[in-house]
């Protein structure tokens, strides 16, 4: 018997009201994360991947942003399935930080500079686990130990400005893990870090996932990172999912031209030029106005007239799906 996934986003549409009018950064996103698996959500900036994650957290900027359509189904610890998109904000708050936790891109600015890191972790623990002050501080020390911060007992009283970026990101992870979440959303957690620190942080998140058995939604624009951490990948472009696939299949045979283009941008995949050096590719053009047809068509080498005029549906095929009219032809 297959249990329902931990997180199932179904046809999610997010709208923002701005001075210039209404925009739709997320247009019908569908994806799922099962317990114990890591799903990477990939796309360039502005593709809607971060907005999707904020919608799951119930942290869309108010009053500008709102979920206009779709459901975000989440399986609670009690096995009850709830729709996060339709949840009253007071209920959502109880899940946030306890069953669903998030770590952010900027470790340097994501921690409150005037509170000690112990206070910041303890605050979350006291809120959700009902521990007293002493218990919460003890828990904070345990969490710092868990994320391999040396001398946790002393460092728990330190302030963020006394720590390096890598250490701060460990603190962020400790904070996120402090109430044993079943779903962790990691929004570009290593982008701002040195490459060596990056690998350590990735290994740490992966170790915790295995030990706790939580699901991880890993948001990144870096396909190199995806290859290391993810079980499955969902690629977004201009607010839509263009391809979803197990990670191995995606790297072996991408179906959507945008995915192929992204893969060609990876240094390891770059074709060697005449002088034997690898040439890093780029995708020509920019994301244009989204109209009727395929959003990627204006930049796509394979696009035909029909790509621009008719709407393109996400075509599922077993474990994989792609939003392209011609993927079979292109593959062949």
């Amino acid at each position: 018997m297959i249990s329902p996934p931990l997180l199932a986003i179904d046809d999610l549409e997010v709208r923002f009201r701005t001075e210039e009018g209404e925009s739709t950064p997320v247009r019908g996103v569908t994806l799922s994360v099962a317990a114990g698996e890591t799903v990477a959500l990939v796309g360039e900036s502005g593709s809607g991947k971060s907005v999707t994650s904020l919608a799951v957290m119930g942290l869309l900027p108010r009053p500008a942003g709102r979920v206009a359509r779709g459901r975000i189904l989440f399986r609670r610890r009690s096995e009850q399935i709830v729709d996060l998109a339709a949840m009253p904000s007071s209920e959502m708050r109880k899940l946030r930080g306890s069953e669903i936790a998030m770590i952010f891109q900027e470790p340097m600015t994501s921690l409150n500079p005037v509170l000690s890191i112990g206070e910041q972790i303890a605050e979350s623990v006291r809120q959700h686990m009902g521990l007293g002050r002493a218990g919460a501080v003890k828990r904070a020390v345990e969490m710092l130990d868990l994320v391999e911060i040396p001398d946790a007992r002393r460092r728990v009283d330190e302030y963020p400005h006394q720590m390096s970026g890598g250490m701060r990101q460990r603190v962020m992870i400790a904070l996120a893990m402090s109430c044993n979440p079943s779903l962790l959303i990691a929004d570009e957690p290593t982008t701002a870090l040195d490459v060596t620190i990056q690998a350590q942080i990735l290994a740490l998140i992966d170790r915790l996932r295995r030990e706790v058995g939580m699901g991880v939604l890993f948001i990144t624009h870096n396909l190199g990172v995806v290859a290391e951490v993810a079980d499955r990948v969902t690629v977004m472009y201009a607010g839509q999912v263009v391809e979803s696939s197990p990670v191995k299949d995606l790297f072996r045979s991408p179906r959507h031209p945008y995915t192929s283009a992204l893969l060609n941008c990876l240094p390891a995949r770059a074709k060697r030029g005449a002088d034997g050096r690898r040439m890093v590719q780029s995708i020509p053009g920019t994301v244009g106005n989204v109209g009727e047809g395929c959003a990627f068509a204006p930049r796509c080498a394979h696009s035909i007239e029909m790509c621009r005029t008719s709407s393109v549906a996400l075509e599922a095929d077993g474990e994989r799906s792609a939003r392209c009219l011609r993927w079979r032809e292109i593959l062949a």
Partner: protein
Amino acid sequence: MWLTLGRRIGGLLIVMFLVAAMVFFLTRLAPGDPAALMLGDQATAEDIAHLRQVYGLDKPILVQFVLWLKEIATGNLGQSIFLQRPVTQAIAERAEPTFFLALFSVSIAALVGIPAGIVSAVWRGRVVDQIVSGLAMLAANIPSFWLGLIFIQFFAVRLGWFPVAGYGDPGAPFVERIAHLALPATVLGIVNSALIIRFTRASMLDVLSDDYIRTARSKGISEIRVVLRHAFGNALVPIITVVGLTAALLVGGAIVTETVFGLPGIGNLVVSAVLRRDYPVIQGALIVVAGIYVLINLLIDIIYTFVDPRVRY
């Protein structure tokens, strides 16, 4: 930290020196011989010459300045021409109403201004924000003496809730003093809350868009806690600055309000000294007011170290 504090104190001493120099030399620009002024109309030329000698007014002006600086450095601000007593004593006698007026006014201004500014920032652009910002704008542009006159008319003359003016009999209980200070402190509280509202709103808006606020929200704590503990804690430094400076400027800046309400404070002393050309009193009051301003600035710097761990280490 000690180094920066030391540097700050050095800078503040220079500021005090410049204030003293400005006060001294500008006073010498004033028309009329101070000695003749002191002695009045019936003085003979010999009397004036004698007094000039006694006060060292016959010496070169730079020598006079140095001698005067020495005096004020030891706390002697000279002798009042009209009050028959040392300037320090005259100021000390008038300090109490000014001190309490400043204290009550800044308390009212802060108690109104900080919550209003926070509310305005949290509901930015909504009706509450527009009302609060509009009222702040209005309050900043009302002359305090005019508002004082209107309050006196309404609350004291028509309704009789408060005494019209003055500071009560000497030796009256403090409760009576409070009744006398209520209206002027409210007027100054309203007028000065404007700046505090605008500052609080601006710093809260600044802080509320910071990344750690999103982190705090992601922890599932209540929005009130996010605003008061996480945002306000970080907006505290500029807010403390503006409240402190308001307090400092109220010590000598409540002149007009003191006059309207007939409060025998330092402002009142300055006005009567100006009208009587009692220069030693004017000079002394200016030095004292600037000194208090400088001291409060230092105090603000010290408070920073308690509020912001980044300054502490």
